[in-house]
């Protein structure tokens, strides 16, 4: 695929106070790809995800989306570039119903394709349709993750960011969610950038992958290459120690 670069992260450094969390990270996501970023707890994966959205802001380096520099943009402006996010901890609106959560997701799109998109989300996650009048806070963890992804999709994103979609979910639900992501990518050509601790699942799903250690990207390659790489296998796939 000779695809164009959609998201280009160059030399990004992010700090929490005086503590450096990212030491110059380079990541590219091309149109139509699924890119996975794997790494241990505290490696800086979620920080990179949040830096793309401008909170916290990168202190050095540039983030370019579809040719526009978004490094210094306010968060809501970045979202309006049609980057949607299913954030860490899902962050659905707990007192609002499933329908209202989806409606909030569509507010970027001005509810133009609302009915059509709601139907699409329900075909992707039929479980959500059974829960439409239920409050977000009363859903199970897996359903909340589906709702979080569904809400992000309602904005008709060009790029979907997923922060640990498998966190705390049963293997069967994780499989459902990964299948849904693959389906979205295959049928609609949606570009996905996901951060995962579940390295095996994520790399199997991904076109390309990056490995992050202590705020640095140490390895990159196609999903298959990384899965076969002995270092990756030792650190993330076998033995169970992170």
């Amino acid at each position, binding site marked *: 695929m000779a695809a164009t670069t959609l998201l280009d992260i160059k030399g990004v450094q992010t700090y929490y106070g005086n503590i450096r969390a990212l030491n110059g990270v380079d990541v590219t996501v091309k149109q139509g790809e699924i890119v996975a970023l794997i790494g241990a707890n505290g490696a800086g994966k979620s920080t990179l995800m949040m830096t793309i*959205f401008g*909170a916290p802001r990168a202190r050095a380096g540039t983030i370019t989306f579809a040719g526009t520099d978004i490094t210094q943009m*306010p*968060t*809501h402006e970045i*979202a*309006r570039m049609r980057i*949607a*996010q299913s*954030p860490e901890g899902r*962050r*659905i*609106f*707990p*007192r*609002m*119903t499933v*329908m*209202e959560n*989806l*409606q*909030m*997701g569509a*507010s*970027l799109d001005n509810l133009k394709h609302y009915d059509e998109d*709601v139907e699409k989300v329900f075909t992707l996650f039929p479980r959500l349709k059974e829960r*439409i*009048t*239920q*409050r977000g*806070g*009363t859903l199970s963890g897996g359903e909340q993750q589906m709702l979080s992804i569904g*809400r992000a999709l309602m*904005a008709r994103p060009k790029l979907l960011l997923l922060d640990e979609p498998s966190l705390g979910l049963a293997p069967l639900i994780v499989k459902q969610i990964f299948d849904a992501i693959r389906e979205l990518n295959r049928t609609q050509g949606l570009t996905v950038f996901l951060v995962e601790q579940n390295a095996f699942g994520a790399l199997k799903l991904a076109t390309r992958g990056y490995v992050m250690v202590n705020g640095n990207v140490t390895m990159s390659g196609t999903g298959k290459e990384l899965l076969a790489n002995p270092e990756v296998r030792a650190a993330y796939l076998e033995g169970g120690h992170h």
Partner: protein
Amino acid sequence: MAVTVSPERDTVATPMQRALREALYAAAISFGLFVLFIGLKTGQNISNELVLTTRWGLLAAVVIATAVGRFLYVAYGQPFLANQKITDVATGLLPASVASRFFQLPAFIVALVAAVVLFAVNSSLVGWVGAEPAGYLQFLRALSVIYVLACVIYYFRGFIHANFTKLGIAALILYPILVVAILSLMSWSFVGGLQGSLKWVDNFGIQILIYVMLAWGLNIVVGLAGLLDLGYVAFYAVGAYAYALLGTQYGLSFWILLPAAGAMAAFWGVLLGFPVLRLRGDYLAIVTLAFGEIIRLVLINWREVTNGSAGISGIPKVTFFGLMTFNVSDPNYVAKVLHLATSSAYYKIFLYYLILALALLTAFVTIRLRRMPVGRAWEALREDEIACRSLGINTTTTKLTAFATGAMFGGFAGAFFAARQGFVSPESFVFLESAIILAIVVLGGMGSLVGIAVAAMVMIGGTEALRELDFLKQVFGPDFTPELYRMLLFGMAMVIVMLWKPRGFVGSREPTAFLKERKAVSSSFTKEGHG
């Protein structure tokens, strides 16, 4: 035969045994607690020596009362309450068996006859039986009226439940007319009815509606946008002083100054909004509290403009849209134009409808906004600010519009307040007012307009009604002043309501997005603090 011995004693004991045991424990605990508090009392004798008096009788009475109370609660109260909970889920009302036992036709007829007879002979009652028994009879009359009304409400409960909002608005619109009609009939004179209606329309009607409007305004900030504002009374003050100053200095009409007061308050709302954009929860509460105090202190100390604590008097009355006035000396005085008897009640009734219209406007705007992007953004902001931003919502403008809209309605209410009182001083805008308004919003169930209206009626109407409880003097002696216990009862009522309904009177919120059918989202699905 296998015998399993349960380590749990409660499963073996019958309810009666359990109640007796609990009563014994309660007696022991209260004895331990009160033996020094009540059983012994130190005092001085004539030669200034310390003497110890014992009050074993009183101590025994307290201990026995505790034991009996605990026994009754465990033996009868708890099973009853447990039973209530079971039926509550199914019907949402009192269990039918209990309610239908309480509301019966013979009892209804007896109460109705008693009420009618006691009303009919009201004027000659004191002459027949003396002052003290007459007081009790009046109390009895009040009870039978309440019982009759409760019976009627119970009978039509299905209809009332289905059309609560419409019936409520109709009742509010008809209220002054009904009051005047009933009082005219009771005193056999229209003017008498008008004068008698003053208290009911002004002290109850207008007073309650002002708080309903304020609470609905604050509801936008606290209930919808989730920004805890402890200084809401500041906007009320801004509106009141805007009308008071511009009205007295430039003689502008209320109808011009009402929007001006709203705009002024909204402007101050935005000014408050800017510094607190990054704050949430407790920190926001403290800053808004300080803001309320700053406004009050400025009003006290900026004497050249606000006349300090002496306040501003002679604030012009509202005119009937410039066509008629409510000043007796004016040639366009309403009674002269319409050839009616002179009475101050016209103005109060007019004000009643004015504040009713303003309050309904607040409700209407709130309902409309909730279905619009900005209102949805407010609610989403209350739920999760970070998620809001990542969905492309500009949280800065969202917060500022919430502050401005809430403040605007506070400003409207303030201008009305100034026009009604004819006098404003910083004393009307103390922190207690903010606290009461916030309490109404919380008691009503944050976000629910009907719940808030009911809460305002209970809180403000309740405190006003406590002024009327003269019969308590007959029970507790002439030294008893019920007014002094108002705040105590008020606080107790709040604690009880929050224990009984931790989410307020109406804990459910109406969703605004639907696929096909509408359904209220019950609060019973979510835990407190989570939803």
